[in-house]
């Protein structure tokens, strides 16, 4: 079965600092991978996705993620964090069904001044 692990429950970064959120997946074939962001009272918003091809994926709001098959990872990065980036971040994998997303437990990001 497909699964996603987000090792960090909480992360705190200073505004302007770089950010990396970790995601490891378990899936036999080439996975379809996603990063979503969830702000309080808001729905999940897709930041970026990986299906195939270039392993470095650019997304919205200045985020990028790199797919590394050898490490079964799909880490999310941003070079300079803004206070408005404080939110819950979820990594997800689309499995054999071709539609159902399997989400990690999320990483809560706190941005300090």
């Amino acid at each position, binding site marked *: 079965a497909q699964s996603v692990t987000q090792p960090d429950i909480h992360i705190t970064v200073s505004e302007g600092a770089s950010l990396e959120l970790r995601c490891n997946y378990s899936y036999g074939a080439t996975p379809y991978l996603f990063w979503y962001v969830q702000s309080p009272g808001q*729905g999940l918003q897709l930041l970026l996705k990986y299906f195939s091809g270039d392993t470095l994926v650019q997304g919205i709001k200045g985020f990028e993620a790199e797919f590394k098959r050898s490490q079964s990872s799909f880490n999310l990065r941003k070079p300079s964090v803004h206070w408005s980036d404080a939110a819950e971040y979820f990594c997800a994998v689309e499995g054999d069904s*071709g*539609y*159902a*997303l399997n989400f990690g*437990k999320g990483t809560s990001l706190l941005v300090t001044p």
Partner: protein
Amino acid sequence: GAGVSQTPSNKVTEKGKYVELRCDPISGHTALYWYRQSLGQGPEFLIYFQGTGAADDSGLPNDRFFAVRPEGSVSTLKIQRTERGDSAVYLCASSLGMGQDYNEQFFGPGTRLTVL
């Protein structure tokens, strides 16, 4: 255009009661999904509709849960004899369809269900 909407935004009910949660998908989206997000967890898949039919209801936890989408647009998630363990945020998502270019899921803000 309008995104996915869900009503009510909050629902408080008593143990044993029946509840209905509504989802209005993005116009033209044929695929609709329900997920459940418990506190401190990521969303968990419940059910997937393609058009009017439930193509996959394998994520529904038991037979107290049922969902319909009679006209291929609005969907209602129905929970009978609610239990305290049903307390969660219920998320609805829709997509154009399936396949790489069509399966991006757009999520609604969710309905927070509290069972007392």
